[in-house]
């Protein structure tokens, strides 16, 4: 057994929120630079220039990259030989968010209830996905997930007869429908298989994967490459102003599924793809 104190967890989460809110991860920044080199539309390139300038300005002046500092979504992998001491793990994560959003002057966007719509004032609670894994470490990955792109996400229980072609059509339609509403260039996370709920979880998990790291299954990696080409043929372009780069990356996560089913979920991530991870 290895001990991890809740104070360490809170501190790590707070630091990740403040850093992610301001500065894009290196893989995301590189993807935007590559998009700027490859975009064929002059207006699309102009939009990408503004995004790169915004990234620089945010980091340079410690201002949030985007005013929507998102829903804090945490993936926590708790080693089965890791012992959290000093309090509750969930509370420690939420306290980190409270401190991180407060100290970082990040916008609080979470409401107590979808009906009454009163702001909690500190961006808590987080959405936390727990997984128990072998080992004695606690791995925390966080994304500050923007609302505009989340709203354009979709799930479908396709018929097995729809096949992989049906999956491609659904993903491309979802991206085209999202258009400028979702702040392209996008990273649509794709969840394929599982149950209704598992597919949406997989889609969110997919956007946590570093850009450029293909699925370890070669068949799925091929599908990821093809999906990127198809999504970019929509012509939506950066900011929906037309062009050849609508998506930067189309990661797919897969899980076994029921004999009757072909679930697919697309969780749209905007260009404000703000992720951090830490191992304690």
């Amino acid at each position, binding site marked *: 057994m290895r001990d991890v104190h809740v104070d360490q967890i809170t501190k790590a989460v707070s630091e990740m929120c403040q850093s992610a809110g301001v500065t894009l991860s290196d893989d995301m920044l590189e993807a935007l630079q590559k998009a700027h080199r490859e975009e064929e539309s*002059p207006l699309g390139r102009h939009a990408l220039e503004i*995004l790169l300038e915004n990234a620089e300005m*945010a980091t340079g002046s410690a*201002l*949030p*990259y985007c005013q929507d500092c998102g829903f804090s979504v945490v993936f926590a992998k708790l080693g089965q030989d890791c012992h959290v001491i000093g309090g509750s793990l969930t509370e420690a994560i939420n306290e980190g968010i409270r401190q991180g959003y407060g100290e970082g*002057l990040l916008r609080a966007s979470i409401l107590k209830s979808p009906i009454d719509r009163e702001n909690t004032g500190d961006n808590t609670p987080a959405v936390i996905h727990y997984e128990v894994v072998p080992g004695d470490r606690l791995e925390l990955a966080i994304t500050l997930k923007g609302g*505009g792109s989340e709203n354009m996400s979709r799930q479908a229980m396709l018929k097995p007869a729809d096949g992989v072609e049906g999956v491609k059509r659904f993903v491309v339609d979802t991206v085209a429908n999202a258009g*400028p509403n979702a702040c392209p260039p996008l990273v649509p996370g794709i969840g394929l298989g599982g149950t209704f709920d598992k597919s949406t979880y997989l889609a969110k998990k997919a956007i946590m994967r570093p850009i450029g790291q293909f699925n370890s299954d070669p068949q799925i990696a091929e599908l990821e490459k093809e999906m990127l080409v198809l999504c970019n043929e929509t012509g939506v372009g950066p900011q929906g102003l*037309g062009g050849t780069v609508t998506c930067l990356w189309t990661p797919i996560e897969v899980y076994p599924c029921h004999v009757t089913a072909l679930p697919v979920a697309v969780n749209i991530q905007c260009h404000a793809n703000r992720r951090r991870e830490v191992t304690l």
Partner: protein
Amino acid sequence: MSSQEHAKRIQVPFESEETIRNLRAGDALLLNGTLYTARDAAHKRILEAADRGEDLPIPIERQVIYYVGPTPPRDGEAIGSAGPTTAYRMDPYTPPLIEMGLGGAIGKGYREAKVKEAMKGHPFVYMAAIGGAGALLGKRIKEAQVLAYEDLGTEAIRRLVVEDFPVIVINDTEGTDFYEVAQAPWRKAGDKA
């Protein structure tokens, strides 16, 4: 077309109905003057106040509403990050405001047919700012003052003074939608739903 180097400097509120009618989908503008912020919750309250015949917290005629919920300012600064939010959430509230004389709105993303229809009868333009460029756009806002609905926090109505605030005209008074015009030449597959 719309590179900001060729952007036109435009005063807000718009000087006249003629100014609004002369704007074309695809025009890059640098707005100077006063904007008012409002999102879903504030729109709802403005229209409820109008229904009850009460004074409105902001002037409407020829004014421009910016759909934004900024981050908190740091000491000595007017505002934090302040990019546009998705415009379709304001679609249910926009036609009555257009009828009341609103001159324009700034957001990002598609507007529904009802809004475009309302624009035909009254001079109004829908403009997009670069979505997610919150730090850059926040720097173009020189003053910010909460005017109403302070309990809404980030969604309160603010009066903003902007300098060279960059936008692109998406929907003009002639019925052109710049998203459609701009995307069409690049579309090889898929349809905008």
